[in-house]
């Protein structure tokens, strides 16, 4: 797992961004950028060079699912591992995310161990 990879975390709750950033820091990921909605995230992804996206679902004006679809439809971005971290825990949400190409799915509230485990899994397949 390349800890130097650039990670983009996306959430409309600033507190959650801070928590995920700190948990990533504990996992030795120090190249972390933030976005507060899907639209901002997409702009940063297109302008930058990221190796992992960790995104919330429920955001405006662009949701995490819509961001995922945009990423998978973009020739340059489509292979970036994409983890959804969300309170949306219905089966239909997981199925829709899977159909859109999500790499893994974490339901909130989550623990650090789950985050580490999912990152290791998606980075192993990257």
């Amino acid at each position: 797992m390349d800890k130097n990879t650039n990670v983009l975390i996306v959430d409309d709750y600033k507190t959650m961004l801070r928590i995920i950033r700190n948990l990533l820091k504990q996992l030795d990921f120090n190249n972390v950028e933030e976005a507060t909605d899907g639209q901002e995230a997409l702009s940063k992804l297109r302008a930058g060079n990221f190796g992992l996206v960790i995104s919330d679902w429920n955001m405006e004006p662009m949701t995490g699912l819509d961001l995922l679809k945009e990423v998978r439809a973009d020739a340059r971005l489509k292979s970036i591992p994409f983890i959804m971290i969300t309170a949306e825990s219905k089966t239909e949400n997981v199925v829709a995310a899977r159909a859109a190409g999500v790499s893994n799915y974490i339901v909130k509230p989550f623990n650090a161990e789950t985050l580490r485990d999912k990152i290791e899994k998606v980075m192993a397949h990257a």
Partner: protein
Amino acid sequence: MPESAADMVRPQVALQVMTDLNRTETALLAELESLGRMVAAAKEEIAAMRVENVDATHLPAATDELDEVVRSTADAANEILDVCETLENLQPKLDSEAADTVATCVTRIYEACAFQDITGQRIGKVVNALKQIEQRVRETTGRYARSSALPARHAPARTEGERLANGPQPTAAASSQAEIDALLASFD
């Protein structure tokens, strides 16, 4: 030409049918009149309701209070995170065992602070519900009290992501991480 028996009976049948129809129509008209009176009475009652306090004061005040709850919990969570970051910065100065203990404790605090996101989303759902009620109250009272034409409401087209964005589920209905892992594994 003499009339057949059937020709003689036909007018009587027609008369009977008309009589039955008149009875049915009369009963229907009475029902309609009764319904009309009920609707008129309901309209008067709605128009007479003093709902101004509900849509002008009570509901906005309730949503403001809930927004304040979200702000306060966010402030508190950020304060806790500030302290955690200070503790993490102390780790290099501690011996290995103490540093590990601090790291474990700080991680648990980070995990616990995620409550603010979940409660914020739940409160957001309540605020949206209150805003819907406020809108309906305004529409209903406007329709019957002032008889002014209300603009038609057009729901904007929503993406799949927006349609499925329902926020946290009640605990009993929410899927666990293990259930989600099993569901994802079933696709492989």
